[in-house]
């Protein structure tokens, strides 16, 4: 009988992201719940070089699947590599991130392992069941796995990031045969941006139709920079061409779960709420005190955004200025 919780870390462009540590945090919760050992696997073209960082964070062993064919993400090769690690670990549960790569990898891996799959997990219960939002976040499903092995992807910003603690775990290489490849990574075109990625942001400032134009987003970006926040948007703002689609939050956009979500000039239609209702503190800034977002917000500020945003930004900058030691 399989006995082990395996966290699979897939570096992006050869580097670890802080969300990797959240996987270990989730793995610890599940390992405690099921009373099974926690292991980690690092997959990539330079996995061995990254294993040390992971090994210091609570796993009992770190498996490394390193191969030139794993330098860039393709679904088939990564799934085979993860399956090799899962077999080596004798894993009953495999945990991945809910990123684009993590989700695709989990999907393919679940079939290879004949495993049930739950994505976007936000809670792990004491009996090993998990919770996830569905119906656009309107409902929460409690999911039970019927298969002996299960694969889950965990929502970003949900589980604690495992800190370095204690002695480093042993690191072991797993042999991997890439086999014939059916897909080939050709190239990557990075998006030039100083912006913080929405999905992993601790703070998000989002703008809607109330901003009135692309120019209306200028004071919003200023506020986001002052806060160190990522920028989100409603579909109406995106459809109006004021900001690219990648910023869209909601049913047909990204799902976010930051500690702080500031919604400016967004009315809060159900499709928008689907993408952000699980956020920690929700601040709404809107001229209409009765709109749904103002009603559900943790903190509601009634007013004209063009007046309020520059004042809030200035206020934050002033306080940060004072905080700098002389």
């Amino acid at each position, binding site marked *: 009988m399989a006995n082990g919780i395996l966290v699979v870390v897939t570096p992006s462009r050869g580097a670890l992201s802080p969300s990797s540590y959240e996987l270990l945090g989730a793995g610890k919760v599940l390992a405690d719940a099921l009373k099974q050992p926690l292991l980690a696997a690092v997959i990539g073209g330079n996995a061995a070089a990254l294993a040390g960082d992971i090994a210091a964070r609570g796993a009992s062993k770190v498996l490394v699947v390193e191969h030139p064919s794993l330098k860039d993400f393709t*679904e088939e090769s990564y799934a085979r590599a993860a399956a090799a690690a899962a077999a080596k670990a004798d894993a009953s549960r495999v945990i991945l991130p809910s990123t684009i790569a993590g989700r695709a990898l989990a999907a393919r891996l*679940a079939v290879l392992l004949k495993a049930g799959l739950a994505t976007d997990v936000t809670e792990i219960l004491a009996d090993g069941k998990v919770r996830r939002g569905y119906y656009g976040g309107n*409902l929460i499903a409690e999911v039970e796995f019927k298969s002996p092995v299960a694969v889950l992807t965990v929502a970003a910003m949900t589980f604690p990031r495992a800190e370095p603690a204690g002695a480093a775990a042993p690191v072991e290489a797993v042999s991997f045969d890439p086999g014939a490849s059916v897909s080939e990574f*050709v190239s990557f075109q990075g998006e030039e941006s100083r912006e913080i990625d929405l999905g992993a942001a601790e703070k998000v400032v989002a703008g809607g139709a109330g901003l009135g134009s692309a120019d209306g987003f200028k004071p919003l970006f200023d506020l986001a920079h002052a806060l160190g926040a990522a920028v989100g948007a409603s579909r109406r703002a995106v459809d109006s061409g004021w900001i690219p689609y990648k910023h869209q939050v909601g049913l047909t956009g990204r799902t976010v779960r930051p500690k702080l979500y500031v919604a400016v000039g967004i009315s809060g239609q159900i499709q928008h709420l689907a993408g952000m209702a699980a956020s920690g503190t929700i601040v709404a800034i809107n001229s209409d005190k009765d709109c749904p977002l103002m009603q559900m917000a943790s903190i509601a500020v009634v007013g004209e955004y063009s007046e309020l945003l520059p004042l809030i930004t200035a*206020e934050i900058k002033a306080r940060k200025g004072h905080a700098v030691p002389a």
Partner: protein
Amino acid sequence: MALNIIVCVKSTPSTVNVGVDADGKPKIAGVPVALNPFDEFAVEAAVRLKESVPGSTATALTVGPDAAAEILREAIARGADAGVHVTGAEFEGGDSYATSLALSAALKKLHAEKPVSIVIFGKNTSDAGAGVVGTQTAAWLDWASVSAVKKLEAVDETSATVLRQMEDGVDTVKLKLPACVSTIKEINEPRLPSLKGKMASKKAVFPRWTAAELGLQPAQAGAAGAGAVVVKAALPPARPAGLKVEGATAAEKAAKLVDILVERKLI
């Protein structure tokens, strides 16, 4: 050479604003079904691809109850040529694992009749919303797969070059065909159903395939074949009552808001 394009579609409740019934299940009885919103983009991608290569066909494929035939009609109204309906009580209650197995069995049958070039999926469904069925289907078939496709750059009879929208930029990936691609909204702007399409959709007749006809055992289909089951649905926890920031002037409100955020250690 002509392409044999398949587009996988699902009938989903026309609204996701649903509650929970007394049995702890989503209250969807009586809610009309509609083509899953993201599948509109998949259908449009299939139709555009077919239009770009003379002699090609686009076939819509669904696993679902009787009512799902309407979704195949919708795909035809939007330009697909034909539809295939995988159906039967045995498919009820399937998760992504069981559903992708059913789709893969249907694709195997279609592929045996006439080699499949490419299978196109939407980003995710509006109800379950996992966004994994396209990739799982490919895995069952041992075909190539790619998710988050924002552009089909080039497709010929043996390969497809596609653009994948990642969190930090765009990857170009070349796939050996047949392959399964899961698209995102950025791939196109779906056209509305045409009059000609609507006429064709009314007359369309769809083959109905059961689990037995696809060579699936009862234990492999629907709830019996699921690896993960929803044992209970609940409403999200209510949020605590909110705070209204009052002030005589905008400056006063701004200062108060920042006070609260500092106090809550959010700044």
